């Protein structure tokens, strides 16, 4: 007859596999998003500085754009925070599946 220890061992192994698979995927996604934002900001700043120098942008335009980028960064941060919460929800649902699956494997 299976014991509680058998169940714990099964859950631990199943959770380890689940975590490895999911965290790797999320880590890559977050790094990709962050790097893309930094790269785009660098390109924007270069273009705006050139626009200011050539007179295509006024000082007020330039400052407005910089502050706009800051507002955009806040919106991006809210998106990332929301996506993190969604990932946690998905991971929690995955953990539920693992625990229930392990219980069924062990006891039924």
């Amino acid at each position, binding site marked *: 007859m299976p014991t*509680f220890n058998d*169940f714990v061992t099964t859950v631990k192994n199943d959770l380890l596999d689940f975590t490895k698979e999911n965290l790797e995927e999320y880590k890559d996604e977050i790094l990709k998003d962050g790097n893309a934002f930094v790269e*785009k900001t660098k390109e*924007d700043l270069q*273009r*705006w500085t050139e*626009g200011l120098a050539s007179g*295509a*942008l*006024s000082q007020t*335009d330039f400052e*407005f*754009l910089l*502050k*706009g*980028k*800051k*507002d*955009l960064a*806040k*919106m*991006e941060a*809210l*998106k990332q*925070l*929301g*996506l993190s*919460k*969604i990932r*946690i*929800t*998905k991971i*929690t*649902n995955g*953990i*539920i599946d693992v*625990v*229930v699956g392990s*219980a069924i494997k062990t*006891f039924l």
Partner: protein
Amino acid sequence: MIIKAKLLVSISILTFCLATWSCSNISVFSPEAYKQAVDLKVESLELMSFATSPYADYEENVTYLKTELRKAYEFALGRPNNELSAGQWEILINEEGNLLGGFLKRWETEDALSEMFVSEMQTLVSDAFDTIIGLESGKIDPSELK
């Protein structure tokens, strides 16, 4: 046998608690909110392209767009556990800020804006809408919840 039953009950309670907790953090996907954001992105960028012309020629269009943006914000604000999306809308439409709300106010104040400024602001506003759309599309479909 009793131990096994107790264990299964404990697992059920744990599962219920985890499921309840995981569902209470952020709103689920809303096709209506998604469509609203996509439609308003297209309409906003289109109207912004005319900001090199006198504001008076487009005043009615701006008033209409502002109303639609306000509706989208109020819709986001009214959905449960939707503070993050509502926060994004608030930043986007804030007249004292430096995205769409601030841009429309500046157009009204200055009458016409420079071509490069308009074009650069369109890119920023487009990216801003994408953050709203990206968060909404990342939300869990209600049918996926257990």
